[in-house]
């Protein structure tokens, strides 16, 4: 089986109605955009992949990551990174603690701090380690959120309309940043959106869901 994120015959039902059915594969470093109106089940698909599907839904089909079937594993062992509309930075932790939360435990303390500072530096947030996330601007928070996900060393990246809350010019910037980093780490990217600009920036195939 090939590297990357595979969805084979994934179908999602809500009660008796079938919401969607997807059969696709995303190679490393490539992107797939799923577009569709709200209620078409695109975010539900992401929940199924991350392992947090609401009990109201029923799903079938297998999800593979680098050839390994992951849909039977618990959510926290799947190595799937996800970014949401909200940055969801933990409000009770400093910026540095937020980044450290996802960093693998096997990395020794001294190295952790260096890795975190380097990550902050790479997105223009040097010296933000001890800051309260609530004091950051929207763009800064989006960048911290991205680095938190990347530091947790995911093998695939899911994006659940992560740019829709940002202002027009900020959106452009953050979008570029996210896709550049994903490409640099050659992650398969699955983007869910209803913004055509997002889909074009992602650069990959586009899958439309109808309702």
């Amino acid at each position, binding site marked *: 089986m090939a590297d990357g994120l595979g969805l084979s015959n994934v179908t999602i039902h809500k009660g008796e109605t079938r919401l969607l059915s997807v059969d696709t594969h995303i190679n490393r470093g490539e992107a797939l955009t799923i577009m569709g109106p709200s209620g078409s089940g695109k975010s539900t698909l992401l*929940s199924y992949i*991350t*392992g*947090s599907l609401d*009990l109201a839904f029923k799903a079938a089909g297998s999800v593979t990551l680098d050839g390994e079937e992951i849909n039977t594993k*618990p*959510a*926290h*062992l*799947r*190595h*799937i*990174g*996800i970014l*949401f509309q*909200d940055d*969801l*930075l*933990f*409000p*009770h932790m400093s910026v540095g603690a937020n980044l450290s*939360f*996802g960093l*693998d435990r096997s990395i020794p303390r001294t190295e952790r701090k260096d890795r975190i500072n380097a990550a902050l530096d790479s997105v223009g947030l040097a010296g933000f380690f001890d800051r*309260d*996330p*609530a*004091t950051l601007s929207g763009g800064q928070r989006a960048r911290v959120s991205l680095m*938190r*996900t990347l530091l*947790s060393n*995911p093998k695939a990246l899911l994006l659940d309309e992560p740019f829709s809350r940002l202002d027009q010019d900020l959106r452009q910037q953050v979008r570029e940043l996210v896709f550049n980093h994903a490409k640099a780490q050659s992650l398969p990217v699955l983007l869910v959106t209803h913004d055509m600009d997002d889909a074009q920036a992602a650069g990959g195939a586009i899958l439309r869901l109808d309702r």
Partner: protein
Amino acid sequence: MARALVILILIGPVIAGLIGVILPTLGYFPAAGANHFSLEPIQALFAWNGLASAVRLSITTGLFATALSCLIALGFTASMMASPWWRRVQSILGPLLAVPHAAAAFGMVFLIAPSGWIARVLAPVLGWDRPPDLLIVNDPWGVALVLGLVIKEVPFLLLMIIAALPQVDAPSRLKVSASLGYGVIAGWTLAVLPAVYKQIRLPIYLVLAFSMSVVDVALILGPTTPNTLAVQVLKWMNDPDISLRGQAAAGAILQFGLIIIAILALRLFEQLMGGLRNWIIMGGLRLAMLEQLRWLLQCLGAIVFFALLIGLCGLLMWSVAGFWAFPDLTPNSISLSNWARHSDGLMVRLGQTAIIGFTAATISLSIAVLYLESTRTVPNWAIFLPLIIPQVAFLPGVQILLLNMGLKGGLAVVIAAHMVFVLPYVILTLGGSYRTWNRDFERVGHALGASPARVFWRIRLPMLLAPLVSSLAVGFAVSVGQYLPTLLIGGGRISTLTTEAVALASGGDRRAIAVFSVLQLLAALVPFVIALGLPMILWRNRRGMSHG
């Protein structure tokens, strides 16, 4: 699992207790040597010549206290909602609710008694140089009892009304009714109240059931010859002659029946009021004269708040009073000697109060968290059950069952009994914040590789710290205020600040009453202050946590 535990704690004792009073009512009481069924306990109850007055008092004081509390709480909301003071009123309701009933009732005594502050203010005008010889506290009609209940029930009902208001969008309803020519009070009564009432119906039944069957407030402020029915049931329960428990049980059942009849009567009254409302609307009446009442309604609400607060100040004053001559408004001397004289007794009771309260609140909080973590829920009526079934109706049954099983009430049993009343409040206060917590934080945590346990301990609990500690404080305050569970289930062997303060009521040593009540008040309120302050200190550098 957690759900089963919650059901067991909330419903188990109520059912066991009701069985425990039904059996002795029918004459079956092995611990007193009665192994066959008979009607003797019921006959003994009806042979008691105070019964008619006791029943009448329970009904009249319960109904008047409920009616007055509803009228004041609803009228105050209608007349104050648009005022800038409304927010401040809301912010003091929480602490006022934590004030134990007994402390509020003693505050009332120090306010209205012949030697109380009101009499002292009037004395120069009326030329009194001695306290007037009037039976104001413990009056035979139960007026003082009604007042003592009203000052505690109004804040409770206000809090329930405030919780209901956002769901009915009161401002829009008032705007519409105003544009159609209705004043604020009329618009509120005709357009907002019907929707609000649906939400506060259960709390009103709670107030009715509580007011009809209250024991501690009735012992402090209520009539003495005869007592209310609930007090008489307690007296029979506490009598050394164990055979009197049969008629106590029969009395408990009668009390329960009276409450059910009263609630049914209230339902009928609701129908009548609905009909009256329709008649007013169909007649196109604008009820303009109601606007004249606005000022009066505001005053009534304010009087309730001030009566409660000044009463508590009275407690504080008497606790440090030396000699205090009659018409003087303040003591002639102030010292801590009252506190010093009772320090041993205070410390012992404070210790018991704190151990029971802390254990009951902590275990209840843990159960509440486990329960809220699980996806299966318990219906709302089950959570309210131990609050709406009057304590005096089922706690005697629990005691009788324990007696029949040969169990002696010790500290552990009393803690378990407190939990029956602490757990509902903890679940009710924690539930809202727990369920509205953004579960996407959990998804992010898992996506970052954190196990469910790590998400729970490192993300969920810290983010919910403020509601967790405040529901712990609520649970503690509820436990501090408990009188009947401590007395009946502890079999008189467990003495807390509350039981001791109420026991002192009949003695009339105002300084002793004051020090025990003040300490009871502090025991209930200090955890509240800590609950407010702790998250602020811990999260002082985290702005995003200030509204968590």
